[in-house]
C-alpha cells in the first residue's frame, strides 16, 4: 500500500499533465509558426543581388543630395541594356538574338536605357514617376568609390554626356582599375565595377533632378524577359498599329495591331525596346516602358501575386538572378508602401527636353542628344515629389489623350473594316499620331504607311460598305474634303492620306510646368540645336496606371 501511494504521488495530476501538454503545444505552435514566417520571408530575399551604391554616394560628392525628411520613398528603376549576366558572361548568342530579338551580345554595353524615378508618398497619396530620357545631355559627376580589395578609387568627372552612358563609362573606368590591380576573378570585377557604374548613375540622376534616391532596382534585358515569362503573358494596348521590322541591324521585329494585345515575354521585350517607327522615337519608348510596368502590375494583381507572399516568392525566385536591389530594400515594406502603385494609383510622366542636338561622340564622330534644362527639371521633379499633402489628387493633371475616362473601344464597324492611314507629308510620325487621334475616338487603325511627301490635301477614300465609317473618320479628324468612293479599293476598306492641310489637334495641358525657353544648363560646344519652338518638347502624354483598367494605351 505505501508503495502504491508513492507511485501515485510521483505521477502528476491529470489536470497538471494536460496543462503541461497544452503549454508545450502552444510553445511548439508559436515556434513553428514564427519559423515558417521567418523562412518564407528569408526565402523572399535570399540570393538576391544587392547593391550598396545608395550609401556609396557620400556627402561632399558632386551629385550628392541629402536624404529627405519624412518617410516617402524615392525609387530609381534602372533598365540595363546589357546582354551579359551578373558574372559578366555573355548571354547565349542564340537566346539573345532569337528569343530576346536584341541583336548580338556585343551591342548595348552597359547603357541605362530605362531610368524611371518613382516617388511613393508615405501618406498613401498618388505615386508619381518620371522617366528620364536616356539621351538627355547632362552633367555626370565623378566621386569616390569604395571598391573592396582596391580601397577608395577616385572616379573622374565624366563631363557632359548622355545620362545613359554614366553607368557604362564609370564601370569601364573601374574595370580598368581592377584589372590593372591584378584582380582576375571575372565575377568580382563585374560586380565591383557595376557598383561604380550604379554610383555614377545615382550621382547623375540626383544632380539632374535634385532629389535623393532612397532605393534602386536594376534589371537587365533578361530580367524583363523573365518577369513576363514568370507571369505567363501580359496585355498591352497600342493606339496605333506597330510595325518595326528588323532592318540594317536595327528594329525589333515587333508587329502588333492597335488596341489591346496579349503578348509573351519575347514580344514584351520588343514592346519596350522599339524606338523606330514611333512618333517621338525615344520619348515614345519611355511611354512603352511605363505602359509595360503598368501592364505587369496589372497582371500581377489580376493573378493574385501581389499580396500573396507565396506567389511573390515564386516570382522572386525566377527573377532574382536578373535583378539587383539596394541592400536597404525590404520587399515586404516596398509591397506595403507601394500599395497605391499596385492599386493603379500612379502617374508616369517623361521629363521634358528642350530639343535635339548633335554633339561630338559616338562611332560616327557625332551623336544626337536631348538638350535639357536642369533648372526646369529640378523644379518639375521637386515640386511633384514634394506635393504629397493631398492624398487623392495627383500633382499633375492627366491628359485625356492617354487616359480617357472610358477605355477607347473601337467601333464594331471599325473592327471589320481595314483602315489605312498614310502620311503624305514629311512630318515624321504623323500617320501614327493620326491613328492615335482616331483610336481615342474609338476607331482602331489597321495599318500606317507613307503616301508620298508632298500631298496638299487630306483625302479619305473608301471601298464598298465603308461609307459610314469614312464619314465618321472625316468628322473625327475634322477634315474639309468629303470622303470619296473608290472602286479600286477592296470592300470594307478605307484609306486616309494625310496632306499638308491637316493640323493635329493641340495638345491638352499635361503638366503644371511646361518647358520654357533655355534658361541655364550646359550646352554642347558644337552641333545645332533643333529646338522646336520656344516651348521645347514635353515628354508626351502622361501614362496613368488607372486608365484602361491598368492597361494604358500608348503609341
Amino acid at each position, binding site marked *: 500500500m505505501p508503495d502504491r501511494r508513492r507511485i501515485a504521488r510521483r505521477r502528476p495530476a491529470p489536470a497538471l499533465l494536460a496543462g503541461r501538454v497544452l503549454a*508545450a503545444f502552444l510553445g511548439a505552435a508559436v515556434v513553428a509558426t*514564427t519559423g515558417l514566417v*521567418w523562412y518564407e*520571408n528569408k526565402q523572399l530575399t535570399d540570393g538576391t543581388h544587392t547593391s550598396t551604391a545608395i550609401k556609396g554616394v557620400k556627402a561632399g560628392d558632386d551629385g550628392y543630395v541629402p536624404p529627405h525628411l519624412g518617410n516617402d520613398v524615392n525609387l530609381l528603376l534602372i533598365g540595363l541594356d546589357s546582354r551579359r549576366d551578373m558574372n559578366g558572361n555573355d548571354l547565349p548568342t542564340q537566346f539573345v538574338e532569337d528569343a530576346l530579338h536584341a541583336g548580338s551580345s556585343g551591342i548595348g554595353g552597359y547603357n541605362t536605357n530605362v531610368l524611371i524615378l518613382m516617388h511613393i508618398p508615405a501618406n498613401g497619396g498618388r505615386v508619381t514617376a518620371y522617366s528620364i530620357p536616356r539621351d538627355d545631355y547632362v552633367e555626370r559627376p565623378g566621386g569616390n568609390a569604395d571598391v573592396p580589395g582596391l580601397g577608395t578609387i577616385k572616379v573622374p568627372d565624366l563631363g557632359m554626356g548622355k545620362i545613359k552612358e554614366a553607368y557604362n563609362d564609370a564601370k569601364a573606368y573601374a574595370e580598368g582599375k581592377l584589372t590593372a590591380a591584378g584582380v582576375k576573378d571575372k565575377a568580382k570585377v563585374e560586380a565591383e565595377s557595376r557598383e561604380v557604374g550604379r554610383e555614377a548613375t545615382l550621382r547623375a540622376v540626383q544632380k539632374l533632378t535634385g532629389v535623393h534616391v532612397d532605393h534602386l532596382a536594376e534589371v537587365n534585358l533578361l530580367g524583363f524577359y523573365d518577369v513576363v515569362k514568370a507571369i505567363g503573358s501580359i496585355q498591352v494596348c497600342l493606339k496605333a498599329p506597330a510595325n518595326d521590322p528588323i532592318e540594317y541591324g536595327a528594329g525589333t521585329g515587333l508587329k502588333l495591331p492597335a488596341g489591346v494585345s496579349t503578348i509573351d515575354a519575347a514580344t514584351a521585350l520588343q514592346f519596350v525596346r522599339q524606338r523606330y517607327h514611333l512618333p517621338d522615337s525615344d520619348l515614345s519608348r519611355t511611354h512603352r516602358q511605363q505602359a509595360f510596368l503598368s501592364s505587369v502590375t496589372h497582371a500581377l494583381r489580376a493573378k493574385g501575386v501581389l499580396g500573396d507572399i507565396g506567389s511573390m516568392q515564386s516570382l522572386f525566385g525566377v527573377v532574382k538572378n536578373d535583378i539587383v536591389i539596394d541592400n536597404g530594400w525590404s520587399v*515586404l*515594406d516596398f509591397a*506595403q508602401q507601394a500599395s497605391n502603385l499596385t492599386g493603379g494609383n500612379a502617374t508616369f510622366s517623361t521629363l521634358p527636353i528642350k530639343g535635339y542636338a548633335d554633339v561630338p561622340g559616338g562611332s560616327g564622330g557625332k551623336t544626337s542628344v536631348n538638350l535639357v534644362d536642369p533648372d526646369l527639371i529640378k523644379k518639375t521633379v521637386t515640386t511633384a515629389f514634394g506635393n504629397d499633402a493631398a492624398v487623392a489628387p495627383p500633382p499633375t493633371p492627366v491628359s485625356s489623350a492617354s487616359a480617357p475616362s472610358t477605355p477607347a473601344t473601337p467601333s464594331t464597324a471599325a473592327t471589320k473594316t481595314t483602315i489605312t492611314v498614310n502620311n503624305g507629308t514629311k512630318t515624321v510620325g504623323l500617320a501614327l499620331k493620326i491613328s492615335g487621334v482616331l483610336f481615342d475616338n474609338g476607331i482602331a487603325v489597321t495599318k500606317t504607311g507613307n503616301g508620298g511627301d508632298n500631298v496638299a490635301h487630306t483625302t479619305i477614300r473608301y471601298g464598298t460598305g465603308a461609307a459610314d465609317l469614312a464619314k465618321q473618320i472625316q468628322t473625327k479628324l475634322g477634315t474639309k474634303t468629303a470622303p470619296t468612293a473608290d472602286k479600286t479599293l477592296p470592300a470594307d476598306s478605307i484609306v486616309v492620306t494625310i496632306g499638308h492641310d491637316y493640323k493635329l489637334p493641340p495638345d491638352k495641358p499635361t503638366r503644371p510646368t511646361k518647358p520654357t525657353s533655355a534658361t541655364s544648363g550646359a550646352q554642347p560646344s558644337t552641333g545645332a540645336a533643333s529646338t522646336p519652338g520656344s516651348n521645347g518638347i514635353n515628354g508626351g502624354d502622361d501614362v496613368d496606371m488607372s486608365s484602361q483598367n491598368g492597361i494604358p494605351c500608348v503609341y
Partner: protein
Amino acid sequence: MSSAARASTAGSRPRTGRGPAQRTRADQSRSTSSRAPRWLPAAALVLGPALGALLGKAIGGYHGPVFALLTIAAAALAAAAATPSGRWWVVPALPPVAWLIAAAAELAWHNPPYADTKAKAVGLVHATTHVFPVTLAALAVMGLVIAIATVRSRRPRGRRA
C-alpha cells in the same frame, strides 16, 4: 500571475509525504531554484525581452543585439531559477512571450507608425522574422541550462550508487 509564475511557484512548493529518496533527489535538483525567489522565472521571462526592447530602442533598434542578448540571458536565468516542475511551464512560455513583446514593440515604436491593418500585418512579419532566431537561441540556452541542472542533480545519486 502568469501561468509560468504559477508554475514556478508550484514547482518550488515543498511537498509532503515523500520518501527520503525522492525528497533528496528533488531537493538536489532544486539546488539552484530553491534559493531563487519564486517569482524570478516568470519575471525573467517577461522582463528580459521587455527590457531588451526598451534598451534596444534607446540605443537604436528594439529588435537588435540588446534585445537578443537580454532575451537569451533572461531565458537562461528563468530556466535556472525554475523548479523541475516549473520548467514545464517556463520553456513553452518563452516563444509566445518573446513574440508578443517583439510584436508589441514593433507596432508601438515603428517609425512611421503603421497606418492600417495591412501595414500592421507587415510589421508583425518583421517582428516575427527578427524574434524567431532569438527564440531559437534562447530555447537552446534553456535546454543547455536544464541539461546541466539535470546532470548536476543526478551526480550525487550516481556517487551513492
